[in-house]
């Protein structure tokens, strides 16, 4: 069963999993992980003069990204590349060219976990109505290093992580805006990848007005040169005035069940001189509180190294 809706309100009366770009949902269907009805929203792209597929700047310089804008649009859009360069870099770094052309902003935020066990038909884990995490006891080199006790596979959304560092808000149809952190929660519920209900429709991402003179960097650490879910990834925004760091936002992905913002690292940076010593010290703070799994110990070092690299790029 597939229903194509043409107005956002129809989602509330139509049962099924929402399909936008389809790159994740199709995969899950193929694997037998999803089997129910589909609500296809691709036609909403033209709704309201195409706002849901567009990227627009408001009078107050804040920016709205329609949930049906593609990743490729986000990566190339002049507003994003000029004012939110880190987000553009993150969008350009994920998946592959053809996938970036098809996948949507909203889908990138609401995709399901890429855990091998979740996507294997034999294993019924927390996220499929079971009561355990198979990756915890079996094979987990891709797992988290901040273990909340439930699902040990890291959240897959690069853009969710990037938007945390941009303090973005998301809008759900009929409900107004909420900070992006409220889309994911703290990761303590192993059954969820995000906190939206099935018939709640994400419509926009709102970015606050750009910060003047910010320097940004995004880095994705993978074991291959392309097209792989990140082992760890980092997003950094810094403002340096008269040799001192006056503003810092730091995100990290691939390390926890939800995208993380590293407030402790930010605190270590702000007010300090923009030097190698500062960023090296701040990078090590990223590992504070890490409780890796037996196979994920290397990722603690990777996070520290990747963050340092990202900070170096931002200062460069």
């Amino acid at each position, binding site marked *: 069963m597939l229903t194509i809706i043409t107005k956002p309100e129809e989602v509330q009366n139509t049962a099924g999993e929402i399909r936008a770009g389809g790159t994740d949902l199709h*995969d899950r269907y*193929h*694997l037998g992980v999803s089997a129910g009805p589909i609500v296809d929203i691709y036609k909403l792209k033209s709704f309201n003069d195409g706002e849901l597929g567009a990227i627009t700047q408001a009078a107050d310089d804040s920016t709205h990204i329609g949930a049906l804008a593609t990743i490729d649009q986000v990566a190339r859009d002049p507003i994003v590349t000029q004012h939110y360069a880190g987000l553009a870099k993150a969008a350009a*770094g994920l998946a592959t060219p053809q996938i970036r052309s098809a996948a949507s902003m909203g889908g990138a935020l609401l995709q399901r976990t*890429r855990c*091998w*066990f979740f*996507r*294997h038909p*034999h294993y019924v884990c927390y996220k499929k109505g079971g009561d355990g995490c198979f990756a915890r006891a*079996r*094979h987990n*080199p891709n797992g988290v290093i901040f273990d909340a006790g439930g699902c040990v596979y890291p959240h897959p959304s690069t853009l969710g992580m990037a938007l945390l560092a941009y303090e973005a808000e998301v809008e759900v149809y009929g409900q107004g805006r909420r900070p992006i952190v409220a889309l994911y929660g703290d990761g303590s519920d192993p059954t969820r990848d995000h906190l939206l209900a099935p018939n709640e429709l994400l419509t926009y991402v709102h970015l606050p007005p750009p910060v003047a003179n910010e320097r940004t960097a995004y*880095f*994705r*650490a*993978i*074991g*291959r*040169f*392309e*097209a*792989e879910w990140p*082992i*760890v990834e980092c997003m950094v925004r810094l403002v340096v005035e008269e040799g001192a760091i006056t503003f810092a936002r730091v995100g990290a992905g691939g390390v926890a069940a939800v995208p993380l913002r590293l407030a402790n690292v930010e605190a270590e940076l702000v007010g300090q001189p923009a030097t190698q010593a500062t960023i090296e010290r701040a990078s090590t703070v990223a590992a504070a509180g890490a409780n890796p799994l037996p*196979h994920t110990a*290397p990722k603690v*070092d*990777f996070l520290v*190294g*990747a963050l*340092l*690299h990202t900070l170096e790029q931002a200062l460069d």
Partner: protein
Amino acid sequence: MMRAVGSTLSRVDVVDKVAGVAQYPGDIDLPGQLWMKVVFAGIPHAQINALNVDRARAAPGVVAVLTAADVPVNEYGLIIPDQPVLCGPGSTPTAAHVRWEADQIALVVAATKAQAEAAAQLIEVDYTPLPVITDPLAALAPDAPRIHANLPDNVLYSYRIRRGHMESAFAQADVIVESEYRTHAQEHAYLQPEAGLAFVRDDGRIEVIIAGQWMHEDRQQIAHALGLPEEQIVVRYPAIGGAFGGREDMSLQIVLALAAWKTGRPIKTIWSREESIVGHHKRHPFIFKAKWGATKAGKVVAAQMDVISDAGGYMYTSNKVLGNALVACLGPYDIPNVHVDARTVLTNNCPGGAFRGFGGPQGHFAAEMQMTKLAAALGMDPVELRLQNVLRDGALLPTQSVVPPGCTAAETLEEAARRGGWMQSADGRWQRAAHAPSIQSAAGPQASARQTSLDASRRRIATGVGIAVCYKNVGFSLGFPEHCYAKVELYGEAEIEKAVVSCLGADVGQGAHTAFLQIAADALNLPPERIELQVEHTDITGSSGSASASRLTFMAGHAIQGAAAGALQEWQHEERPARCEFVFHPRPTTMYDPETGVADPSVTYGYCAQYAEVAVDLDTGHVEVTRLVSVNDVGKAINPQLVEGQIEGAAAQAIGWTLLENFIQKDGRTLTPHLSNYLIPGVLDIADVIEPVILEIPDPQGPLGLRGMAEMPMIPTAPAIAAAIHNATGIWIDQLPIVPERMWTALQAQNGA
């Protein structure tokens, strides 16, 4: 006239392939065809008590559901028929025993794919699960459950070599190196997943259209399982989307034929990528325990090896791969005292089978690591040590037969060494200015242009160089009655207007048919455009043997030359058309003596040496190959462009196997059944680093002097990379794959030590 051999003649299939009109099996439809869903057991070890297919049979669109009871002779296998075509009750005593998660238990035939898949869900299986054995060492325990009840234990096959006297040899040795090496499974990941069709022809015979590697062997196995004479079966190969050994064993051949035979309707099926990865064999994982000794002067005097491979649930080609590894694990060296025990062991893992190199990459990883370690222990240059021990014409193989003439292990190694910066000094010794492992900053000019990598900090990058050499048998070995048919027909009156050349060697992508054409053109002294190839199906001529073992151009080249000469003779005798069918038989080989391993195992060998440069990120353990020189003696390059393609493709697969590809099973289940988690190299992973080098030193046995060459560049890569890693870091990595986690853990241990 321009000679065709040696030219870069375009592939015969290139226009169809760039235009998108080449037909692979899945592209073909037949009128009235039904769709077949193959149902896997989905459980790695169990007894099937009952199989209820009543609901599936009653489902919409379903025409037939076939089970074990429907298979006339419910057994098959390339070497021995130890695998049921379909597992389940109502058949042979052993058929109800599931030994692998992808054992096939039922065939659902329906009007549409969706109907077949829906009906497959309705099959009810009553299983008694059995203990799952996934560790070959555990499978060797005396009380381990037996995978095949008719065998006394889980050792499926074993070989041994006994040459010389180990105790006195080790006593002579000034240094002894002992290590354990482990190599891992590899998925072929040919881009075209298994697909095929079968139908009953108007002449009453069954035709199977499929992508395989050996039409006549497919035909034989289909006929055996269906209890029909071979003449009752026709096998046809359209375009084949890659093989690499992965299509050597049966996947869909028999079950397609069975379904067509039972229903009388054309049958089609295409496997998904997941079905392909779960449902066909892999490169065997191996464990080697090695103890080698050498004198201060640089003579390797003793090599003792204990070899175990994981066969999975069935034979496939496990004994043949083991037979190759038995010799490969000693490298291309003349070692006077040798003691090898090799066993292939049954487990409930995915079966091991043929994959480019066929035991060579695994065996040479152990052998060449031992040589690199011995050189380090002796303080000798690794090239010099190898050259002092390498097989040369006249030397004895470990099997105590003389190496076939034309042995060029030394020549390939010397060329690779020269290109890697080694020089021969006045006293004849080879050396390279010691590579001081350097640590570079990311910002420096050495930093990779590739931004997206695990080289997170790029603060401390260590670089190193390594070298390795190999040999690999050409053709079927160990007494197999190796042969190849070809047929030539010449048409015209005064002059030859057209030649029809028939040879059924499979073109799996390597370009075999183009090479056939080039060899035929020169043998007939005709321009290639006047030659028509007939290569499609088993009615055309006799068996060409498999597109494997680096044998096809070698064997078919002889056969085509023979048929051409015969047809030209007929032409002289005024026969019109002039015809000749020719069977080439290379010199015979012999099986290993069961006690000593004495044998003349192989027709001939091909040789390859590789030089690798790597960059190791000391903070993350990420290893990048920055240069790989592959020197191959191919005897005569029939088509240099195709030969280079084989070298580059093999080296890319070898880099993938060494650093990236990680086929993972847990509890007998495949956890990496997709290209999203079984990672094969992409275009950025193999950035412009492979330098193919072709040597042309004739093989006295080869047609036009050519040597088999397609597997060899897969073989020395892993030990060359591992040697370079040691050169960079001082760390020996004895287990593959060298993924960042493994390298990082080793670097941590080094820091802690």
